[in-house]
């Protein structure tokens, strides 16, 4: 098994607050890696560090041996790391179809003139983009609502669309930030199956932040637990679940 992502003593401080403090871990190629911890533990900050949205205060992050830290977000995305957001950051004023088309940006190269003058190359490219977008919309089950604005979708559908948008990047690594938030039990079950399916189909490595413990336990190959910005445990679900530090931090102290 090859190591795909390697975080080494990653830290981020906001003023005096240590949002992420000396966190080191490795993610293997092809695994589903869960990230859990109480609200405010620093999970989303960690995702932001990994995708370049927040600059690191210290430490390094490598992807396939290449250093990610210090790169702007669009470069990291261009290297094949896609993500979703905890508070859903779809392009709300654009249609579902456009949302999925937008993030094919890195896999296409048509420029201003190509697009405006409709050169054969850009027309061909546009056709591919369109086909791929529809394919993805079918996959996430929103093809019949392709032209509706993203803002008009329910939470669950928005989450799915966000995943679809991230997939359009043709990523090798997918970071999902609380994909099940706001979903009901049935939707959550569907999501579990869906995440497994896309891993298989797109040969993805998936990192996942999730609150819903059963879902995480069920889905993840390995789990890392964060508390107050520090990594308190990493391992397979069964082991982590038994860890007393994890129980205290996450399930609520007496």
């Amino acid at each position, binding site marked *: 098994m090859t190591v795909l992502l390697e975080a080494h003593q990653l830290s981020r401080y906001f003023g005096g607050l240590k949002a992420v403090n000396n966190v080191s871990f490795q993610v293997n190629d092809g695994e589903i890696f869960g990230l859990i911890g109480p609200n405010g533990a620093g999970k989303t900050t960690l995702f932001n560090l990994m995708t*370049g949205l927040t600059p690191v205060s210290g430490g390094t992050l490598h992807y396939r041996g290449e250093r990610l830290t210090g790169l702007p977000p669009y470069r990291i995305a261009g290297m094949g790391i896609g*993500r979703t957001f905890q508070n859903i*950051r*779809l392009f709300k*004023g654009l249609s579902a179809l456009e949302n999925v088309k937008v993030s094919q940006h890195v896999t296409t190269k048509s420029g201003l003139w*190509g697009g405006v003058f409709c050169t054969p190359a850009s027309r061909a490219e546009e056709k591919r983009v369109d086909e791929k977008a529809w394919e993805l919309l079918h996959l996430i089950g929103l093809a019949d609502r392709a032209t509706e604005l993203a803002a008009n979708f329910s939470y669950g559908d928005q989450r799915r669309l966000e995943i679809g948008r991230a997939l359009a990047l043709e990523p090798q690594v997918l970071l999902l930030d609380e994909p099940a938030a706001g979903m009901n039990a049935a939707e959550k079950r569907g999501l579990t199956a869906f995440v497994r399916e896309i891993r298989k189909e797109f040969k993805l490595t998936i990192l996942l932040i999730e609150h819903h413990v059963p879902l995480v336990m069920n889905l993840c190959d390995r789990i890392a637990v964060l508390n107050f910005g520090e990594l308190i445990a990493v391992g397979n679900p069964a082991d982590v679940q038994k860890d007393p530090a994890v129980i205290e931090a996450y399930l609520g102290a007496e």
Partner: protein
Amino acid sequence: MNDFLQNNGFLIVTMVQQALLAMSLYYPLMCGQLSLASPGFYALGGYVAAIIGTIEYFAPWRDSLGWVIFPLEWLAAGIISGILALLVGIPALRLRGIYLALATIAFVEILRVICLNLTITGGAIGIFGVPQLFESRWSYIWTFGPLLILMLLFSYRLDCSRVGRAFKAIREDELAADAMGINPTRYKVLAFVIGAMLAGVVGAMSAPFLNTWNARQGTFDASIAYLAYVLIGGSRSMWGPLLGGALLAALPEILRPLKDSRLIINGLVLVFASIYMPQGIAGALGKLRDNVGRSFGFFRGGK
């Protein structure tokens, strides 16, 4: 009809001209950037044309090239505006929202004061006797009109192209766009430069159209006027600035019969339009179309 054009030709061409200027704000706005720099580039373009058209140095060019000098003026204005836009845009576009708007207003004011004081720009009196491309004002529709059509086509194509999607993604959520692999700075600067070049070309076309050019052409007032064009017209589609620019430019003339109170009414129109058409004219028309469509049993979108 001829008589109608005689009476209103200038106004109609002005409407087209102002619509074009409003559109020059639309491109940065497509990226969510509220830039009010257009009057500056408009003034610059006008000076380029007026200077090429009047100073001694270019006399042999003018003589040998004939009317061809005019498209060359437009080209020169576009290029110079584009270069300046690049220089100003790269640092300025780090600013957001109202801060960018104010920085661009500052740019316009600085440029104005400089133009007011240089010899080559004719100081306060400006440059007059700008050579004419056409006799009648209405004929200038043959420069502004094709440009407008060109820009509409451009915008239409842009809207559904890769670059246009990147613009819109940045407008919707710059951070998410960044995380989806779009370089926001690059596209914001690109949009800013497109807007600036358009404003520059419109300026170059306007110098002969207005016969004269001076530092009063690109001012804070114009910045604010263009802002009103875009917001009253609607900022979400290219039709918004087009309608806003054309209609608001015509408004004081339409109100001319009201004599002394016409500008008071003009102000009231702005207030009421803001309140009752929060999505702008284009938005209001879109809603109207949707409602009409729905009542006939059509639904918007659908495949």
